């Protein structure tokens, strides 16, 4: 993947750029930034089947966001589920288990050849972000130093970097955000600081486990604290393998923008991705 800034606005920090998705040999898509990613559920925009996608402007509509957690499957429950479905008269109870089984194992996705293959969207760019503001909400109170807890349609799951990277390597997206310990603005300073420490550590874990060649976007947290955001940004910038950064909280957008641009970040961040509270994504 290549990114280049083409022009800057005269008095602000806005810029026009071009994102070149070239991770597969035949894939050569150039997307102008700022760019809006289409939100998807399990890889496809909610009501737009792939034969209708070409009716959207091209190539602007060729970048799709997805959450790997949409595909989560709960292996351990499968035996119990079968037991309940066969022997239980409590069909609703069985259904509860059955529902959590509706996912795709990473093995199956690998067998199919990755997400582009599975979705029939070889001409599109896929961006993986763990959180999805509608169905995969981070639960900061249940997160711990091992991983982030998400509330998903198939229940509460604690996702560790190794599990996340397993999903990423089977799905092979063009780019992905690393696992972040997201906390709301009202947590204590201590908790906020811990979230930055964890996020940076998980960034290193993800980088170590990275095998797919997708571009890594280091997640930036820090709540409403400028210092913490700055510290996080500096740490992310320090890692040479991060292609870009991913912000997760719109409310602290301006703090982040400041921290990225400040001279202390040490190295120019190539590309920045911001996910706002309402679930849509913009790349600036």
């Amino acid at each position, binding site marked *: 993947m290549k990114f280049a800034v083409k022009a800057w606005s005269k008095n602000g920090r806005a810029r026009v750029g071009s994102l070149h998705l070239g991770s597969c040999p035949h894939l050569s898509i150039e997307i102008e930034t700022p760019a809006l990613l289409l939100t998807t*559920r*399990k890889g*496809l925009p*909610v*009501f737009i*089947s*792939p*034969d*209708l996608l070409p009716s959207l402007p091209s190539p602007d509509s060729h970048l799709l966001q997805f959450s790997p957690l949409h*595909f989560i*499957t709960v292996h351990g429950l*499968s035996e119990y589920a*079968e037991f309940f479905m066969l022997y239980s008269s409590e069909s609703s109870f069985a259904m509860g288990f059955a*529902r959590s*089984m*509706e*996912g*795709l*194992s990473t*093995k*199956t996705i690998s*067998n*199919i050849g990755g997400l582009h293959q*599975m*979705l*029939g969207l070889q001409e599109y760019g896929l961006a993986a972000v763990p959180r999805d503001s509608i169905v995969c909400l981070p639960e900061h109170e249940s997160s711990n130093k091992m991983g982030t807890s998400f509330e998903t*349609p198939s229940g509460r799951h604690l996702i560790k970097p190794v599990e996340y990277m397993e999903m990423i390597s089977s799905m092979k997206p063009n780019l992905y955000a690393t696992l972040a310990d997201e906390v709301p603005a009202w947590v204590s300073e201590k908790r906020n600081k811990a979230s930055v420490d964890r996020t940076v550590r998980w960034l290193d874990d993800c980088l170590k486990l990275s095998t797919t060649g997708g571009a890594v976007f280091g997640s930036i947290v820090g709540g409403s604290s400028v210092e913490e955001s700055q510290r996080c940004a500096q740490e992310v910038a320090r890692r040479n393998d991060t292609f870009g950064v991913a912000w997760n909280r719109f409310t602290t957008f301006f703090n982040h923008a400041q921290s990225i641009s400040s001279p202390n970040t040490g190295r120019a961040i190539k590309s920045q991705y911001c996910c706002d509270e309402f679930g849509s994504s913009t790349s600036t």
Partner: protein
Amino acid sequence: MPVGTQGTIKGLTTSQLEEIGCQIILGNTYHLALRPTSELIDQLGGLHKFMNWPRALLTDSGGFQMVSLLHLADITEKGVTFQSPVDGKPMLLTPEESIQIQNRIGADIIMALDDVVKTTITGPRIEEAMYRTLRWIDRCIAAHKRPNEQNLFGIVQGGLDPVLRDICVKGLVDRNLPGYAIGGLAGGEDKDSFWRVVAQCTAALPEDKPRYVMGVGYPLDIVVCSALGADMYDCVYPTRTARFGTALIPEGVLKLKHQAMADDTRPVDPSCECMVCKNYTRAYIHCLVTKDAMGSQLLSYHNLYYMMKLSRDLHSSIIQGRFPDSPKAMFLNGSATRWRLLESIFLPAVLHSRHPKIGL
């Protein structure tokens, strides 16, 4: 004919329907009259324009939905009295009103209001319904304001009684209508009786007019009725079963919700050429079905494609003289024994009919 109840086939755009090869769609008068009302559709230039469908449309009379959906529908000589689902007021659907609504909607084929009874009912009610249907057809013909643009089809009633069916057929044929439907057969009766009635009607109806078997849609039923000489069918089955996660395949049905589908990386139907089977695996659709709208959309697309292909295969096997031996179209529910069973049913169904034309 796929059923587009509210002016749309659930989950599919009209461009997709064109691509699949649909030529005619059914719209439900009852639902359309409720929302957005036939007057609005008329104002906007008719249903074709409203739903952006350039090909053919057929509307039913509204009577069937009324009887099946509303608890307190009551049929009198005047028409069908019911409680309006909007405000509970008593309302009346007369043959005249039904035709006027259909005139406003603007479909190419419109259906007469008939007095439909379930085939499981016995007794004088069936005879009453059949004669009333004949009286109502005259009122429908009189009320029809666009006979040069819209084709009014009559509906043959009479339950499972061959004598009543015969009287009804004769009565409708006397009115020289553009086409005829065989009604009252879409629920509950046993298959032998069903086929017998269809055979009797198709034998008695004019050769040069279309015969429409209403509400018939399982693939096997369509094949059998085609063998008996019917021409048109409508059913919600392909799209409704798709929304429950079931795909139609040559071997029968495939329940995508089943846990075994979670690892299956084959397409839904390896022999199918549709967009869904060319791009997706059973595993992916399994993770979508019943949880995400996209699952229903993809399966609806495949199921309709399958039904259209079934039609085309029927056509070509009839033309090429291979019907009913055609292996591809006829490999339904998995075995040739099924076909031999069917053949053994055709002959008696035809023989048992008392119509002079069929007597062998």
